[in-house]
């Protein structure tokens, strides 16, 4: 008996209950529907009577590794668990180190971090919807999301120098400034797609960075309307997700879930607003919340978040002041004063928290990562109990659980 079994009793019509023991199956880790993650599910007919998550297949010991690397060389490996949202996972690390050092990044760096974090939120959400869609048999979503994601990934690579895992944030700022001009090849490439979708050419004149980013944001804002018609308003999607996997508000709180899952259950908790950091206090945006807390609401909250992220990026590009982007070039053997610090941010999947302890050396004494996916774990057995086997993919994917992030 786990504590999670306190769940309210749901009446199950046990048509197949022959009095025999339930059938126990391994759902994953090779199953394409879960990624590197296994659930041990017990079935009675089509009904899941028990589901126990078994994470750890991609555990790499990030926390142990962090104790052996210097403060700066920790950055590239700490972002490996979430390559889709690499800015999100290392953001609190950088903030916590800055807290320990008692420094604050320059204004321009704060905006650049915000732009990067929001771009990654959108690319991560697009990846999520791509897989969410394909596991519900909606392959158009998969193709659309990956096509659109490509242009946003190009944008992150323009700023950070890499498509993914760019190690862009450093204590005291960001690694490099955004370019002033966008390479004509990139504009040409985007324009080809732009013309295909809208029917006319993109006109940003002198390839200015700010104007290019604004144009891309405007284009994707319009594109999200198409997504609404194609996925969120489609019969297939609605039938498979509405009223499935309902997580009530009080259960969401009790299980301590985070991110879109929490907000879909009606808790308007978003670190960008309630515990603002860097440039977020200066920006205006909404925090979408759901009403029922079912699989559909979780998707809708994520969908609306992408729109808000586009708004944030457009504002940040507009408001970004000129100036330096980092305090100074830190030596590779940076020393951080002894102490303990906690920082939390809102990554794409929810609240990311770091606890860092320094003993004054060139390496951290202890780095604790509390990723959002790990905190979604209790929701998996809770929501799957008494669900139909066909509802496992919508429930699992609606949580936006990422095994690598949870395992670290």
């Amino acid at each position, binding site marked *: 008996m786990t504590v999670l079994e306190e769940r309210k009793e749901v009446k199950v019509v046990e048509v197949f209950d022959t009095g025999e023991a339930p059938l126990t199956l391994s759902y994953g880790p090779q199953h394409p529907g879960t990624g590197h993650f296994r659930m041990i599910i017990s079935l009675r007919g089509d009904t899941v009577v028990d589901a126990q998550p078994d994470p*750890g297949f991609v555990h790499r010991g990030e926390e142990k590794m962090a104790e052996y690397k210097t403060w700066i060389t920790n950055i590239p490996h700490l972002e490996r668990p979430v390559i889709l949202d690499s800015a999100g996972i290392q953001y609190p690390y950088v903030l916590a180190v800055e807290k320990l050092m008692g420094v604050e990044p320059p204004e321009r760096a704060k905006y650049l971090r915000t732009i990067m974090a929001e771009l990654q939120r959108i690319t991560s959400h697009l990846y999520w919807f791509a897989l969410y869609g394909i596991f519900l048999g909606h392959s158009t979503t998969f193709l659309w999301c990956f096509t659109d994601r490509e242009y946003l990934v190009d944008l992150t690579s323009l700023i950070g120098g890499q498509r993914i895992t760019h190690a862009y944030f450093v204590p005291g700022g960001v690694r490099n400034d955004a370019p002033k001009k966008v390479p004509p090849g990139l504009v040409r490439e985007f324009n080809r797609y732009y013309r295909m979708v809208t029917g006319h050419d993109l006109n940003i004149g002198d390839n200015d960075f700010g104007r290019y980013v604004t144009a891309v944001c405007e284009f994707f804002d319009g594109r999200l309307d198409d997504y609404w018609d194609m996925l969120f308003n489609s019969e297939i999607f609605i039938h498979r997700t509405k009223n499935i996997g309902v997580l009530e508000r009080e259960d969401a709180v009790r299980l*301590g879930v985070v991110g879109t899952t929490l907000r879909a259950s009606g808790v308007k908790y978003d670190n960008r607003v309630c515990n603002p950091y860097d440039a977020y206090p200066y920006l205006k945006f909404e925090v979408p919340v759901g009403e029922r807390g079912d699989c559909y609401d979780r998707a809708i909250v994520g969908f609306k978040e992408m729109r808000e992220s586009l708004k944030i990026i457009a504002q940040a590009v507009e408001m970004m002041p000129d100036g330096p982007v980092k305090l100074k070039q830190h030596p590779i053997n940076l020393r951080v004063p002894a102490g*303990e610090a906690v920082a939390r941010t809102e990554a794409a999947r929810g609240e990311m928290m770091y606890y860092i302890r320094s003993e004054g050396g060139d390496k951290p*004494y202890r780095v604790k990562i509390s990723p959002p996916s790990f905190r979604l774990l209790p929701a998996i057995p809770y929501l799957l109990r008494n669900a139909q086997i066909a509802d496992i993919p919508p429930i699992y994917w609606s949580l936006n659980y990422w095994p690598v992030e949870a395992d670290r």
Partner: protein
Amino acid sequence: MSEALQPLLDDLANRFGEAIKSKIVDRKIVKIEVGREKLKEVARYLREKQGWDHVKAVTGVDLSRTSKKEKMIEIIYHLGTYANEALWNADLAISYKLDAASPVTESLTSIWPSCEYHEREVFEMFGVRFEGHPNLSKLLLPEYWSDIPPLLKEYEPAGR
């Protein structure tokens, strides 16, 4: 530190004065070290009277290589609240120390169900036994792991 936190800290100090062993309150972290004998009582008070309704993380720290070289393991519960909006920007952590030679303590899953998986992680990474935990088994490590718990400072990764 969040301003809404100060009255709660005062309240805690009034009620459990003798059980609070040390306190760090600054912009980096708010951490209260609680005596183990009063741990559950303090935790229940925090949960029921102050509204800290979930645990954000449970951290283990092996203190054997700090400047004091204590043969202790520190357990830190990072608390959070979703119900009380005034505390959404507040961080509060309660901690206690365990003798590294016999790391046995009590589980707080009956107070905060959200710490079930976090405690399991501390169990396998530091070898701390949480009594009263509903399912204290390996979580991230492979089933065949037979070495000492890997986040102890004593454990040296291969190739170092």
